[in-house]
């Protein structure tokens, strides 16, 4: 079949993918730079698939609507941007503990506080290290193209249901707002089977289903925690995703995720034109993080340079992965400033000069 190719904003491509992925319900609240997701769905979704789209009174209400809707075993989601995601953290912790599948999209902007509406990667810690209270993990996917903004939606729903765990697409304001060519996938039929754990009204032939995150007995609570940790280990074993570019002969490897990885590819190209052998490593899943794969590359190269739009958050995970084998340098911009390939090239040259000294 002929593929449908179109030019779309990242946020719109994601919203279109949501409809095509057979999503049943979206609950959200407007916030820049992701409001197009809610707007697109409000315009398109119900008429095309009967998908429920509801603008909540706040992000707090939105995530709790997602919690309730997810209890029914349907494909449900929300989207927001940094300050809104902060408001959702309590609900996300409940959803993680109650083991409910859902998709949460964070189109990150600069912070802390009200910050700026420009792109940032400052929510890395919040996304991959828990974010809310207690010991839990989200599966976190970081697209770097508008194409991936769309492609990661059905993948997220698959992972969410496979592990009964919330999945976050961690993207940024630039990817949300920029237009690119997108190849749209064929619509996936709506999910019709009823999940055995879902609260859909108790048939007379089964026990009543209870969805809760309250386990007041410490023994029971620890049992739940151990079960969750075991699940996260399985996710770490099975779901690591990453991309490697020109690392075979590289002296220095740039490590970056999302939009920044693309800028790093350009920087690596510029570097090779100058005779500097540079490769790029892009984690696609931020949890599970590709610790082992980075460690393997560290055996073959002299330096890592981590580039992020934050003060060095993924840097900590790269250092954990490398475990002191080689130096891990860092270059970061904050406040909504996107680093340029030339800046990164300059940093690469500085590292090489430093080595010669």
């Amino acid at each position, binding site marked *: 079949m002929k593929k449908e190719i179109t030019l779309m904003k990242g946020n719109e491509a994601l919203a279109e993918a949501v409809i095509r992925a057979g999503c049943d319900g979206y609950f959200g609240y407007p916030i820049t730079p992701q409001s197009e997701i809610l707007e697109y769905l409000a315009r398109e979704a119900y008429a095309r698939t009967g998908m429920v789209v509801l603008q909540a009174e706040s992000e*707090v209400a939105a995530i709790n609507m997602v919690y*309730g809707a997810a209890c029914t075993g349907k494909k449900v989601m929300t989207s927001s941007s940094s300050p809104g995601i902060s408001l959702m953290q309590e609900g996300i912790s409940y959803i993680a503990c109650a083991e409910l599948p859902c998709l949460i999209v964070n189109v990150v902007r600069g912070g802390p506080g009200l910050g700026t509406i420009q792109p940032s990667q400052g929510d890395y810690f919040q996304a991959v290290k828990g974010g809310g209270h207690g010991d839990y993990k989200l599966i976190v996917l970081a697209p770097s193209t508008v194409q991936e903004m769309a492609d990661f939606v059905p993948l997220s729903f698959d992972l969410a249901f496979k592990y009964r765990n919330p999945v976050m697409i961690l993207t940024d304001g630039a990817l949300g707002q920029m237009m690119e060519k997108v190849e749209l996938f064929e619509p996936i039929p709506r999910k019709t089977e009823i999940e055995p754990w879902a609260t859909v*009204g108790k048939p007379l032939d089964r026990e009543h*289903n209870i969805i809760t995150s309250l386990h007041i007995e410490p023994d029971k609570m620890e049992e739940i925690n151990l079960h969750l940790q075991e699940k996260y280990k399985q996710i770490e074993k099975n779901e690591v995703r990453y991309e490697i570019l020109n690392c075979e002969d590289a002296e220095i490897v740039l490590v970056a995720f999302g939009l920044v990885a693309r800028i790093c590819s350009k920087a690596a190209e510029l570097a090779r034109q100058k005779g500097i052998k540079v490769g790029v490593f892009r984690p696609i899943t931020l949890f599970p993080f590709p610790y082992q794969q980075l460690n393997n590359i560290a055996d073959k190269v002299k330096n890592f340079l981590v580039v992020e739009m934050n003060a060095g958050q993924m840097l900590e995970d790269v250092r954990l992965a490398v475990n002191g084998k080689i130096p891990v340098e860092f270059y970061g911009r904050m406040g909504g400033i996107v680093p340029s390939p030339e800046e990164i090239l300059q940093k690469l040259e500085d590292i090489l000069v430093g080595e010669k000294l």
Partner: protein
Amino acid sequence: MSNQILTAEEKQSEHKEEENICLKEYLVYERPKTLIDIPMHYCPGCGHGVAHKLIAEVIDELGIQDKTIGVAPVGCAVFAYNYLDIDMVEAAHGRATAVATGIKRMLPDKYVFTYQGDGDLAAIGTGETIHTCNRGENILVIFINNGIYGMTGGQMAPTTLIGMKSTTTPFGRDVSVMGNPLKITELVAQLPGVYYCTRVAVNTPNNVRRAKKAILNGFKYLEHKKGLCFIEIVSNCPSNWKMTPVESNKWLEENMLPFYPLGDLKVPNLSKTE
């Protein structure tokens, strides 16, 4: 039909009905089948047990056990799901109506209700409460008002009466410091999304019967899909009021009910709607 002469067959069936009335299951009071037979964690004399029983009875009578999904609150009734034999979801503090909205939007033909205390519904969850009412979600909200935070040990609630003592108002609620008690039921009754709004109590057998009628109406009106049904149940908290169950019911009658008067605040105009 009334003048019709009964056939022999009809006479026999009428006779059978009389016989049925004499059957044991019609004469002996029994635990509703939706109420699970385990000891409750509520304090002796607390109104939650009665309210749970009424919900279970109504679900039994309407035959909707397989179509009902409840949302349990944070607070004393957080374990409501242990006692009601229906699918249930535990919500974060104050968020029950948002959770119920999510459930109901996914399953529009199911009976969805929340069961919330005064702290849950009228303090931390005021935003969700007002907006869910205003959207006219077709859910039933059962609001237990005992004027105090029970589970956390008797702190002031939004509904605590003026002068009423709590652990955080040890000298009585002072309006100049703590503001006024919140009549949230009167507040939401104004909203066009609310279809049915009433206030009942569970302190006397007569009031219990009225409360049951209200809950029955609440569930039945959901079928009209014309908006939210809101039932406030004025209840007691013997433990935190530091009273015996009997004293607490008397105190409720003398102090709570004058401020929170019983009766319907809004009823559907059935002649028009049906």
